[in-house]
């Protein structure tokens, strides 16, 4: 394995983390809610792929997207809508609780050992092989899907009415409401988009490695959440870059560390996270002069 291969893999995984980060950052943007339960949308889509693995691939994918979107919408409707005026610490704990309750549901329904969503594993075949570098289809898919969804989100935010309203709500929620932006519609839209992102992440992850366990989405969400805080969660772009960076770093360090030390990968990543937070508490990619006051 040479360094180009390492970079290619790291960029692929970084794109997946960027997708998780977009889902989290959209929700944080419109309602200042750190959604720990986002990972459960990914897990829900993953288990849908497990259940639907015998169906034609497009149908299974459509079902996964549908389940994640409906669950996202329900989460907001049942739990988070009541928390709009709550303290940040309260909402944080509430999403944490929802995440663990849903994780328990997966545990009850599917068991702790995990189920296989063996549906797109043909994507693991190499697509391009030159000079010792192997680029697998799944890496191309990660980059492609990541790029397309990122572009689509940007277009939606900048070119549509609901996108404009979402940006207005993110900038100043109260002022936006006063100007006639319908809060419920904007927030529901944000949750629906985050559901789509979660389903895309689940599809890409199961293509790479088909085992779905109850903590399937939680782990990547925690790391992506760390990434967007490090990147700067006030802005969608800095948050997405932060998500990409942590996925990239995780993959890169995993390959660079000598194999005897590889078990300490989480320590290395989180140590870097602490250092970055200390040096740039407003976010690594936040513009110079941004203050911490507008953050949680």
């Amino acid at each position, binding site marked *: 394995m040479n360094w180009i291969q390492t970079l290619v893999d790291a960029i692929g995984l970084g794109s997946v983390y960027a997708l998780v980060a977009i889902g989290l950052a959209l929700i944080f943007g419109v309602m200042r809610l*750190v959604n720990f339960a986002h990972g459960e949308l990914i897990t829900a889509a993953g288990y849908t792929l497990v259940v639907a693995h015998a169906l034609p691939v497009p149908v299974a994918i459509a079902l996964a997207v549908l389940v994640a979107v409906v669950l996202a919408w329900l989460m907001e409707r049942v*739990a988070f809508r*009541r*928390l709009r005026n*709550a*303290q*940040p*610490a*309260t909402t*944080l*704990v*509430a999403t*944490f*609780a*929802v*995440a*663990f*309750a*849903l*994780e*328990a*549901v*997966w*545990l*009850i329904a599917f068991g*702790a050992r995990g189920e296989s969503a063996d549906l797109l594993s043909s994507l693991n075949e190499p697509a391009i092989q030159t000079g010792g570098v192997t680029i697998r289809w799944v890496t191309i898919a990660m980059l492609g899907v990541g790029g397309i969804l990122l572009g689509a989100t940007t277009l939606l935010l900048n070119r549509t009415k609901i996108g404009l309203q979402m940006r207005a709500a993110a900038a100043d929620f109260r002022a936006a409401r006063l100007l006639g932006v319908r809060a419920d519609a904007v927030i529901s839209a944000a949750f629906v988009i985050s559901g789509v992102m979660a389903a895309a992440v689940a599809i890409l992850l199961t293509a790479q490695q088909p085992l779905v366990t*109850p903590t399937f989405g939680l782990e990547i969400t*925690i790391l992506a*959440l*760390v990434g967007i*805080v*490090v990147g700067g*969660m006030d802005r969608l772009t800095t948050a997405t870059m932060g998500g990409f960076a942590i996925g990239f770093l995780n993959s890169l360090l995993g390959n660079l560390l000598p194999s005897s030390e590889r*078990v*300490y990968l*989480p*320590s290395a990543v*989180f*140590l870097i*996270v*602490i250092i970055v*937070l*200390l040096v740039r*508490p407003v976010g690594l990619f936040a513009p110079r002069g941004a203050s*911490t*006051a*507008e*953050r*949680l």
Partner: protein
Amino acid sequence: MSAAREKVLQLLPPLLLIVLIGLVGTTVSAGTKTEFTGVLVNIAIVIALYVFIGNSGVISFGQIAFVAIGAFAAGVMTIPSEVKPTLMPELFPFIANHSISSFESLILASLLGAFIAFVAGIALMRLNGLAAGIATFAVLEIVHNVLRFWEKIGPGAKSLALIPETTGLWEAVLGALFCAVIAFLYQHSRSGRLLRAAREDAPAARAIGVNIHLHRLFAFTLSGALAGLAGGLLVHQIGSITTEQVFLQLTFITLAMLVVGGMGSLWGAVVGGALVSFLNVYLLKLEAGASVGPIHIDLPNGSTLLIIGVVMASIVILRPQGITGSRELSPRRWLGRRRRGASTSPPPPVADAPKAG
């Protein structure tokens, strides 16, 4: 009644509840007694969390790291040195060749918890809000990762067994009482009051010259010491431990206890710890299968987490200040000596998060 006596009276309900759990615990069967002991150890952990989270208003996901440090330090140091080489062949010689008594191991656990919390806190306490939450979570991840794989200081991924089971019911009562008294003394100390002021309004506190970083660091270190102590109590209660037992699930469940009780008061920490612990114990029993009267209940695995998650979410949504309203229980209120006006309009509940700044 003077203000000082009023304060001391506020300490009574938490202490009495702890002693009451101990007294009831002496009347039950041996198996149930172990569960009561476990509940008291949980209360000690929740009080440790409360010392930092309750007073500073900063959510920390990292305090269980100090419980883990305390548990493994106390466990590794009390296993007889004759059996250490077979259990943990890689240990550093100075750990392998020494063994201490259980009581000494609790002191060691507290000191180590305090020391590591202090070192981590010097850097982390400068952060606010979410960045602080994420950074403390990073501490938990690092401590877990190192304990799990560094076999020179402990058992690594294996279970640490053969630890003397010296935490009985009364040791747990004493431990929880000790934590409650320390927490109470801290919250009424100068540092505790300044920290609570900063929790309510950080810019205003800073403007009158409160060094928030210093007081947060002190509370974090004290919390680390109590968490280490609670970890020591825990490991001597259960006799064997793995790193997974003091990681995400314990973080979730103890945080749930604090939130359910009300994270702004010691009374809330103790009540939440007791209620959710008992709920947890009995739900786990139902998961294993138990008969309640004529009905046999056998809940599927995971139901406990589900029910506690739903309870926690409901309380956060419907009663964000917890079931105690994040207030201390003042016996005076029970004696009916409060003015009427005051009892119909209680003071506004404390905010549970720092203002940005």
